[in-house]
């Protein structure tokens, strides 16, 4: 039995399965899609993939500093707790749709919750 979270979740193939479900949810939510209004959707999707890799406990090198820098312009545009909660909600729904066991999903959500202050630049 794999002992780390990333392997328990299914590694790279699990990320591939999750990224489109997650990114489509985010883009479809009018309350937050404005923050994702990039013309370069491929780059944007690659970033979502990095984020999922991180919260799945995978080999991501995103630091808190990167997270702050990436979101600083969005915070200036009004990114706040309600938007963070909406994205977190879509992450939870994604995990549910993929049938991720509750104990593993809770670990993922805990990692995601830990990024709140960096994302909101507090």
């Amino acid at each position: 039995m794999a002992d780390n979270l990333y392997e328990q979740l299914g590694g790279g193939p699990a990320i591939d399965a999750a990224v489109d479900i997650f990114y489509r949810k985010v883009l479809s939510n009018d309350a937050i899609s404005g923050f994702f209004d990039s013309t370069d959707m491929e780059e944007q999707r690659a970033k979502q993939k990095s984020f999922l890799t991180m919260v799945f406990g995978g080999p991501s090198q995103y630091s808190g500093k990167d997270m702050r820098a990436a979101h600083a312009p969005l915070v200036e545009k009004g990114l706040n707790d309600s938007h963070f909660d909406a994205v977190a909600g879509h992450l939870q729904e994604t995990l549910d749709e993929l049938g991720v066991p509750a104990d593993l999903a809770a670990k993922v959500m805990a990692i995601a919750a830990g990024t709140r202050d960096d994302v909101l630049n507090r």
Partner: protein
Amino acid sequence: MTLRFNGAEIPCPQGSTVLDALIEADQSVEYSCKNGICQTCVLRADRGAVPAESQVGIKDTLKALGYFLPCVCLPEGSLEISVPEDADLLGRARVVSKETLSPSVSRLVIEPATPLYYRAGQFLNLRRDDGLTRSYSLASVPHLDPHLEFHIKTLPGGEMSTWIRDDVSPGQPLEFGGPNGACFYLPEHPEQNLLLIGNGTGLAPLIGIARDALHSSHHGDVYLYHGSRHVAGIYLHEDLLELQTLFPNFHYVPCLSGDAPPQGYRAGRAEAVALGDFPDLTNWRIYLCGYPPMVNAAQRKCYLAGARMDDIHADPFELKELRSSPRD
């Protein structure tokens, strides 16, 4: 192993990635995640094979051109690599013919001095002898057409397009850079349905892609939606109706967003009509060319309609400024 990059020979020790070797040699390269995820560091292998792991996540069309991620590339042999933008050599050509397709679109046919290897749907940078340069999509197909064909839209105040319309005649020499661009047909999944949406001269690359697919025995359905505000802008109507009689799996849908549609035309913007006809695009391959706001909006709608990102090939036509990097 040796890497050839920007004219320099760079050693790549066993176990070192291409990116680390370039950084070690003080080459200026862009990178971010160093994990094969962000694709910031993408380079092109012009010679030598790169391992499959270094192309994971890269679009099929770019893979075919040798694009790879140096941060996860442990080379198995020597490589000659370049920054994609730098691969821009000028070729020489002569104008063969010019004809009017509509009040604002001319068909320009040129013959390169030496045969050009390209894929239908790519673009060239055409250069006048004083250096004026503009990008135009190829409308021809290498294995079907003897020359290179472009559809040139005359833009108000457009220096190059006005010159081509008013002053260019057969025999006129031109230089060109390219081919560039990753919006082209690959025969890998001949059963896949193709959705081609273009407005204005966005039709040029799409007709090339459609003919390439149909003549390559593509047996999935090929839908081409061509949009314009006015009937005159649907400038290849007869040709496309004829193509439809030759290939039963080819479906041509002209769309008018301004004029009232005559018999055989649909009312509305091309992307809206197409998405209305096919709300579920799971497993479809999609090509979007033309006016950037249409292309960008359609890309998003097609993705939300279930198409995989790697299956959506978008070619927004940016006007006036010469693109500094290949469009994809």
